[in-house]
């Protein structure tokens, strides 16, 4: 079975290990082994499944605890003896949790010789005869077990399963000869990993740590954050460079042309900006499952939902007297009365569609104050927001945008309104690498147009995630601000609420506040503060648009009436 994707076994090993685990393809012919968070297995091996189960069992039973591993380092024979004893012991101890075919691997006699991992170690380092471990058990590589293996499984499940990439595997292979890799220690050390030098090194070297293992302690839990920009691809090293983006190759949608407001000449430049939709190259792998957005969902649940009394309903909690009297009269007059005679209180539908625009210009690749890059924080927040709104039944789309001058404003669709927000979408989101510039006005005009065309609801909202103000060729300072403000005014006049969120921005996004207005812009330092701000922000944005629309309708009606009166007069 050469084409077996070992990632399919991820859930199985996580279930056995009792914590999120990953599976990666090992060298052909290599025995299965684990570093504590990822199990490497040769997919062509017939017994791959059994090897995975045994390795996961070792993790679950605490057989790979660092204290034990330290004692086995560089001692191949005791390690093999330990594997035989501990493997059988752990399998026997966990047998109620294991698939039937794995349970029959247990040699009860060997299993009964040891009561605990410590005892197995004692026996393994002693002189008593111990049979060789069956090949299906794989191997233990004491120096490679990185993450603290906690048998109580307090590794939080809220984290996503770590992500594997080819680069990880290659960098591991390179130092196959030597078990001890100083580079790994340096990168995962509390000082080096979280600090700027560590980040720089990591970016230069690519991800050298085995598949997303937890740094001991100080690494900021940026939640799924290591998986994207630090892929060991050359493209990841050219952050901010003005080259043709190589994570977005294919042109999908049609291109659209938009005007731009020239504040100096006080008029529009017609057909000035070309917006192109490009397909994003998805990241090779992504975490399983959608982002959990419980807090955000809570914050947004009551948005735009009101109770409303409706008359003349076919059912309801009270009789609509007007309708009842009318029906009585009609009945008496001999015609068939309408049967909708009740008053009902119903919850109004949310009827909301949201387009989330994610700024992926080069500045988003800058390091954030809270660790990671600004882009990583923005991406988490955008994914959370999309997941929350999707769960609440709103129509929601997610597009990233950047620009390279007025003729190349790129919109990278991550999720269209009709797409599912599934693993494929998450992989597309992970595949976006920040680069180039921001032409905010064109992005807003395109976003508003997409919303109006495909939103399909009476309430529309455009949410922009951006870290600082727009900057592009010939799009600076006052000019850019004025154009963006103009674009927002156009969208709002047509009933689309617009707001902007700046997350973990390194610079003060004053300009964004000036453009969007203080009531429609929020700046927070971490994405987990998002639930606190989105509720009021969304509510006020929707309300102001609603008022504007009603005002417009009123004016419109008055104008109509005046016209009619004038004509009749």
């Amino acid at each position, binding site marked *: 079975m050469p084409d077996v994707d070992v990632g*399919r*076994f*991820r*859930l*199985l090993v*996580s*279930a*056995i290990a*009792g914590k*999120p685990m990953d599976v990666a393809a090992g060298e052909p012919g290599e025995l299965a082994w684990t570093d504590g968070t990822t199990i490497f297995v040769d997919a062509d091996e017939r017994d791959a*499944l059994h090897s995975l*189960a045994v390795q996961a069992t070792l993790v679950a039973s605490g057989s790979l605890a660092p204290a034990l591993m330290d004692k086995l380092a560089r001692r191949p024979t005791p390690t093999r003896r330990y594997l035989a004893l501990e493997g059988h012991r752990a399998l026997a101890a966990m047998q*109620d*949790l*294991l*698939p*039937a*075919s*794995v349970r*029959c691997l247990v040699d009860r006699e060997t299993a009964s010789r040891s009561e605990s991992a410590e005892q197995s170690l004692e026996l393994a380092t002693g002189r008593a005869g111990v049979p060789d471990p069956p090949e299906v058990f794989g191997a233990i590589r004491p120096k490679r077990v990185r993450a603290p293996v906690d048998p109580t499984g307090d590794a939080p*499940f*809220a984290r*996503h*399963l770590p992500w594997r990439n080819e680069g990880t595997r290659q960098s591991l292979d390179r130092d196959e000869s030597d078990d001890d890799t100083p580079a790994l220690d340096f990168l995962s050390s509390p000082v080096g990993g979280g600090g700027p030098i560590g980040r720089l090194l990591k970016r230069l070297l690519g991800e050298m740590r085995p598949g997303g293992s937890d740094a001991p302690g100080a690494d900021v839990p940026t939640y799924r954050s290591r998986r994207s920009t630090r892929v060991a691809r050359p493209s990841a090293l050219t952050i901010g460079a003005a080259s043709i983006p190589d994570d977005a190759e294919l042109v999908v949608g049609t291109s659209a042309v938009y005007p731009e407001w020239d504040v100096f000449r006080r008029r529009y430049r017609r057909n000035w900006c070309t917006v192109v939709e490009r397909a994003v190259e998805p990241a090779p792998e992504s975490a*399983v*499952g*959608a982002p*959990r957005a*419980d807090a955000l*969902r*809570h914050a947004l*649940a009551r948005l735009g939902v009101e109770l409303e009394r409706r008359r003349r309903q076919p059912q*309801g*909690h*009270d*009789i609509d007297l007007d309708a*009842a009297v009318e*029906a*009585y009269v009609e*009945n008496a007059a001999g015609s068939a009365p309408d049967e909708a*005679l009740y008053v*009902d*209180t*119903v*919850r109004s539908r949310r009827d909301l569609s949201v387009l989330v625009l994610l700024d992926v210009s080069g500045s988003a690749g800058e390091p954030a104050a809270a660790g990671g890059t600004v882009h990583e924080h923005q991406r988490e927040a955008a994914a959370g927001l999309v997941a929350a709104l999707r769960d609440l039944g709103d129509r929601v789309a997610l597009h990233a945008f950047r620009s390279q001058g007025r003729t190349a404003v790129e919109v990278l669709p991550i999720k269209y309104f009709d797409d*599912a927000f*599934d*693993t494929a979408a998450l992989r597309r989101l992970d595949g976006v690498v920040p680069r180039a510039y921001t032409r905010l006005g064109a992005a807003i005009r395109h976003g508003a147009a997409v919303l109006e065309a495909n939103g399909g609801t009476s309430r529309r909202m455009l949410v922009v995630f951006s870290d600082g103000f727009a900057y592009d060729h010939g799009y600076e300072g006052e000019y850019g601000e004025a154009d963006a403000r103009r674009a927002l005014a156009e969208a709002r006049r047509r009933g689309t609420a617009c707001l902007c969120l700046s997350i973990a921005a390194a610079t003060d996004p004053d300009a964004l506040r000036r453009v969007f207005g203080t009531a429609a812009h929020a700046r927070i330092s971490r994405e987990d503060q998002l639930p606190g701000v989105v509720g009021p922000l969304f509510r006020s944005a929707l309300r102001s648009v609603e008022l504007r629309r009603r005002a417009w309708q009123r004016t419109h009606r008055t104008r109509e009436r005046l016209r009619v009166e004038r004509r009749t007069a």
Partner: protein
Amino acid sequence: MTPGTRPYYVPVGNEEQVFGAAYRQGLSVLLKGPTGCGKTRFVEAMAHDLGRQLVTVACHDDLTTADLVGRFLLKGNETAWVDGPLTTAVREGAICYLDEVVEARQDTTVVLHPLSDHRRQLPIDRLGVTLDAAPGFCLVVSYNPGYQSVLKDLKDSTRQRMVAIELDFPPVDVEEKVVAHEAGVDHEMAQRLVRLGQAIRRLEGAALREVASTRVLVAAGRLVGEGLPVRDAARGAIAGALTDDPVVSAGLVEMIDAYLDDEPV
């Protein structure tokens, strides 16, 4: 309820004693537990033991007070009052079971307040009467403290009028019995299904919002009893029921294949 056979329920802890004591004292009961763990079945069994009729209401977003208490309908040229399920239970001294009560609007659940404390009264303002609950009346509400409560929570003033009983998925041996009995499969098949369920439960939160409940295990078992191959049954009743995500689904199928492998010789 008709004096038939007792609905199959295996007690796990002291829940039957707690329920019985609360019932005799006229206290209301709040059942907490994940979906498919046996809350409804427990109430059915208790109603049978206590010899009371059971009135069940599945609560939802748009449940109004009138849906519970009753309303006027037009009949010809007259209006006629029709009792709601709660009023029926109060008049007849039945056990009224509100399933997933957090789904109901908070302004609706307020009507339960005078019923669930010492007053045991149901005021019906449209009729201008206040009904005293008949002896034997008992209010039971249930909710799933899992994901629903993220949106909605039970009001504190409602909660504090209740005696809480927490239910969870039963221990392995009990669950095996339940699956074997409900699905009509042999013990060995039940054991394999339960083992798969236990494994999936260890994944909670990683990729799944809700884990495999006793109910889906029973459903899979019933398909097996109908002659379906066990893996097909599990794919339909467990993997398909738990997720829509193709990647997670593929992972679950691998788990099913591993756990429901044909028993080795």
